[in-house]
C-alpha cells in the first residue's frame, strides 16, 4: 500500500518537475521543440494526404465506362469553352503588352505560385487551419497568401521543412483589407476571422463598412482584396457579404458576416503566392522568431 502511494507521489512529482521545466525552458528551446515535433509529424501527414489521394484515385477507377464517357463529354464541352476564352485572353494579353510598351510600364511578376495538396486540418484549431504538403524546401515563406483559383483561402501562418500551416479566412489569426462591390468610392473595409464557439461554424466578419454603403440589388456583394496592404494581390475574391447579417450597425459603421467564396472544409489543393520580395511584415515575423 505504502509503495503504491509512494509510486503515485513520485508520478505527481515527476509531472510537476516536467511542467515546471517546460515553463522555465528558454523560449528558443521550446520553439525548437515544437519545430522538431512538426518535422517528426510531417511524414505522417504526408502519408495521410497521399493515402487519401490514393483512395480518391481508386474510387474514381471503380466508376463504369458509361459514367466516364459522360464525364469526358462534359469535359470536352468545358474544354471547348475554355479554348475560346483562351483565344480572347490572348488578344487581351497582346493589348496589355502594347499598352505597357507605350507607357513603359515596368512590371514583373510579384509572386511565385507554388501548388500544394492539403495534407490535413490542424486538430488543435478545427476548421481554422489547414496543413499543406509544401514547406520551406519548396520556397514557401510565412505570411504568403494562399488561394484557390481567384479566391483567397487564407495565408501561411507557419512554415516547416516540408509542410506549412495555413490560417483560413475564418481563422481569428487572419486579417486583411477589402473592397466591397458597389462601393464606387472604393473605401477599405476590414475582414477578419472570428473565433468559433465549440461545435459552431467558423465565420469571418466584415467590419468598418461605411454607413452610406448599399449592397447592389439582386446579388450578394463580392468582397475583394485591395492590394494596398502589400500581402494580397488586388482583386482576389474573399467571398460575399452575408445579406442576413447586413443590417447590423455599430456606431457609424455597419458590420456583416463573410460567406467565403470556397468551401474551406473540402479543400484538396491550394496555391501559395510566394512574394518575390520580402515584405516588412514577413521580416518582422522572422525577426521575432530570432529574438
Amino acid at each position: 500500500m505504502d509503495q503504491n502511494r509512494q509510486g503515485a507521489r513520485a508520478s505527481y512529482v515527476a509531472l510537476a518537475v516536467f511542467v515546471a521545466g517546460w515553463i522555465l525552458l528558454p523560449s528558443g528551446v521550446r520553439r525548437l521543440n515544437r519545430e522538431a515535433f512538426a518535422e517528426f509529424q510531417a511524414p505522417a501527414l504526408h502519408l495521410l494526404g497521399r493515402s487519401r489521394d490514393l483512395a480518391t484515385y481508386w474510387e474514381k477507377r471503380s466508376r463504369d465506362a458509361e459514367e466516364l464517357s459522360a464525364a469526358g463529354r462534359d469535359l470536352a464541352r468545358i474544354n471547348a469553352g475554355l479554348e475560346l476564352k483562351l483565344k480572347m485572353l490572348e488578344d487581351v494579353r497582346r493589348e496589355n503588352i502594347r499598352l505597357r510598351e507605350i507607357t513603359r510600364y515596368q512590371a514583373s511578376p510579384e509572386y511565385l505560385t507554388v501548388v500544394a495538396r492539403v495534407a490535413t486540418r490542424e486538430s488543435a484549431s478545427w476548421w481554422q487551419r489547414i496543413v499543406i504538403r509544401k514547406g520551406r524546401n519548396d520556397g514557401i515563406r510565412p505570411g504568403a497568401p494562399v488561394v484557390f483559383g481567384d479566391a483567397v483561402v487564407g495565408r501561411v501562418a507557419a512554415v516547416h521543412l516540408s509542410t506549412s500551416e495555413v490560417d483560413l479566412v475564418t481563422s481569428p489569426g487572419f486579417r486583411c483589407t477589402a473592397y466591397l462591390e458597389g462601393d464606387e468610392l472604393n473605401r477599405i473595409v476590414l475582414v477578419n476571422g472570428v473565433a468559433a464557439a465549440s461545435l459552431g461554424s467558423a465565420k469571418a466578419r466584415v467590419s468598418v463598412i461605411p454607413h452610406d454603403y448599399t449592397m447592389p440589388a439582386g446579388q450578394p456583394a463580392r468582397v475583394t482584396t485591395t492590394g494596398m496592404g502589400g500581402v494580397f494581390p488586388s482583386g482576389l475574391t474573399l467571398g460575399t457579404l452575408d445579406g442576413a447579417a447586413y443590417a447590423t450597425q455599430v456606431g457609424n459603421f455597419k458590420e456583416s458576416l463573410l460567406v467565403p467564396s470556397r468551401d474551406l472544409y473540402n479543400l484538396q489543393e491550394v496555391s501559395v503566392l510566394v512574394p518575390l520580395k520580402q515584405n516588412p511584415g514577413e521580416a518582422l515575423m522572422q525577426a521575432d522568431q530570432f529574438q
Partner: protein
Amino acid sequence: MTESPETKVLPSTPVEKIRLYGVFCLFALGFLYVVAGLAYRQLIQAGDLKEQSESQSRRLVLRPPARGRIYDRNGFVLVDNRARWSVQADLAALQKEFRAEYLRLLAAERARQAAQVDAERVMELARVNVLQAWLDKIWFVIDETQKPDVRRSRPTVRSSAEPATARKVDIEELRRHLRERRALPFTLLSDLALPGAGQAPTPEDGMRAVARFIEQFPVEGPIRLESDIIRTYPHGTLAAHVLGYVKDTDDLPPAVQDFDESRAGSLQKLRYTGKTGAAGVELSYNNILKGLSGWELWTKTSAGYNQTRLKYSEPVQGSNIALSLDYRVQLSAEAALAKIKDPQGTPLPAAAVMLSVDTGEILALASQPSFDPNRLAGRISQADYDEVEKKGAWLNRATQGLYPPGSTFKVITAIAGMRRKVVDWDDILECGAFLRVGDHDFPEHEPVGYGDVDLDKMLAVSCNVWNYQVGLRAGSDALAAESRRFGLDSPLLDNPAHAEGDGQPLTELPFAASRGLVVPDREYKLRIKAGPWTDGDTANFSIGQGYLLTTPLHMACVAASLARGETRTTPSIIHDVSRDGTHRGAAPIGLSRVQLEALRGGMVRCVEEGTARSARLPGLPFAGKTGTAEYFKKGQVAHLAWMIGYAPADNPSVAFAVLVEGQLDTDTWGGKTAGPVVREMLESWAAVNGVRLAPAEPPAR
C-alpha cells in the same frame, strides 16, 4: 469492566461539572457570535459588501457615441463622421515586457555604480523603451520608404526635452495617460490615415498605411488597431460659421437605456474622450446630435489595468439634422465673395445671406474670412487659433457683424414716411446737391443733385436728400419705431417646428448677434453720453448712418418681409417641410396696395436701371436696393458695400443681403461691389430651381 482512576475523563465532582459546562457555554457563545456575525454579513450587509467588492474589482468604461450627421436641405452631407484608425498598446499585456526592461535597466544602473537609483524614473524609462520598440516596428511596417532595423536590440530613447513626433513616444502624453487613464490602451499612433497627422502625404498613402498595418502586423499581441469615429467636415471651410466645430470633452452624453446608473454609482468610471459642440449648429443642436454613450463593465487587475470585459452595450449614434442650407447656393455665395479682393489679392471681409421669402429658411449664409473646422475639431493648436484670430475669421459677419445699413435703410425711411403720411408714393420732392440741417450741409452723393424726385426715382438712384426731408418730417421716433417694427433691435431666433412642439425653448440662431444691435433714439444718445438728439442725427438715421447698427441677416429679413408685405421674418437654419410660413410677431406692413406696389416697383427699377444695374440678370427681374455706408477704420473713413432685395420681382421666392467691408485702399461701392455677388447667388439659385434665364446680352457697341 471497572473504571480505573487513571482512565477517568468525565467530571464527577460538581465543581468539575460547573467548569465543564462553563467551557461549553463559552464555546457555544463563541459559536453563536460567529454564526450571528456571518448572518449579519450575509443577510444584512450582503448588498453593501457586494457593492464594495464590485467597486474594488470592477470598473465601468464609457465610450462616446458617433454624433449625428448634418445634411443640407436636399440630403447632401455637410458634416459627417469618418473612421479614425489608431494604433494602441495594451499596457496590461505589456507588463512582462516592462518588467524585463526595468530589470535590465536597473542592472545597468547598478553596474554603473550609480549612487542612487530612482526606481520610478527607471520604470518610466523602461515603459518608454518598450513602447518605442513597438512603435519602431509599426513604422517599419507602415512606412514604405524608411526601413529601420527591427532587429536592433534597443531603441533610441528620446529625452523629455525633445519635441514629440509621430515616430517617438510622447513621454508627457504617456505620463498623463498613466496618471489619468492607466486602464485604457495607450495610443501609439493616432489617426493613421490622416494626411499630415499620420505623416501620410495623401489620403491614399494614409489608407495604404492602414492596409499595410492590417495585413502585415501580427494580429495577436499587445498592439492592436482600433477604429473609432471622429467628426469630419468634408467641404472644409464651406458654411463653417453655420456648422461650427466640436471640441474634446470628458463629459460624455448619458449612457444607453440598458445602463443601470444606480448600480453603477460606486463603480470607478473611466471615460474615453468624446466630442461636444463648440460653435455653430454643432453647439446649438448638441442635444440632438450627441447620441448616447456606450458602456463596458470590466474586471480590473491589482495593478489597475482592465482584465476581462463582463458586459457591454454599444453607443447609439446621435440623430441627424437637415439644415435649410442649399449646398450649391452656399457654394456659389462663398465663391462669389472670395472674388472680391483688396489690391494685395486678399479677399475682403464680407457676408452674404439668402433665405426663403415664405418660410424664412436660410438657403445660404456665408461669412468671409472663414476657417476650416477640421483643424479646430478636438484640441485647437495655438498656431491654428492664432491664424483664425489674425484673419478675424471667428466672427460670423452675416449674423454677428454689426454695421450701419446705409442706403438699404431708405426703404424703411420711406415706409415710415408713408405710414406717418408725411409723404406719399407719388409726391415729388425737390432734391438739390445738399440739404441744410441746422448749421450743417448734408450732401447728396450726386454733385448736382437729382432735381424732382418721387419714391420710384428715390429708390432707383438712392437719393439722400429725399430721405433727409422725409426723415425730418416723420421724426426720429417714427424712424426708430419703424425699425423696431421690422425687428432691427431684436435677436434672431431659430424656430424649428419640432422644438416648439416639444415645448423646448427656442434656440438662438448659431452665432447670432444678441447684443450690440442699435436702433438709436433720444434715450440711447443720452445713455451713451453723446449729448442731446439733433436734427442732424435724424438726417443721418434716415439714410442708415449714425448710430444705427444691424446685421446682414437682419437686412435679409427686412427684404423678405417687404416681399411678403409684412414686418417680420423668422429665419431658421433647420429645414422643415411642414413649416407653414407664419412668422413670429409679423404684422401687415401698413401701406396701401398702391404704396406697396410703388415701393416694390422702385426696387425693381433700382436693379433695371439704377444703382444695382451690375446685378441685373436677363430673364429674372428682381427687386433690390444698394447701399454704401461709411465706417471708421483706423480713424479714417472706409466704405461698406450693401445690397438687399428679393427675387423674382413678381412672385418673390428668395430674399438676400450682401455686405462687403471695404478697406482704406479699396474702391468699395454698394451696387458695384455687392451686385456681382447677388448676381452669382441668384444664378445659382435659378439653376437649382430650374428657373430659365435669358441668354446673356451682347456687349453694347
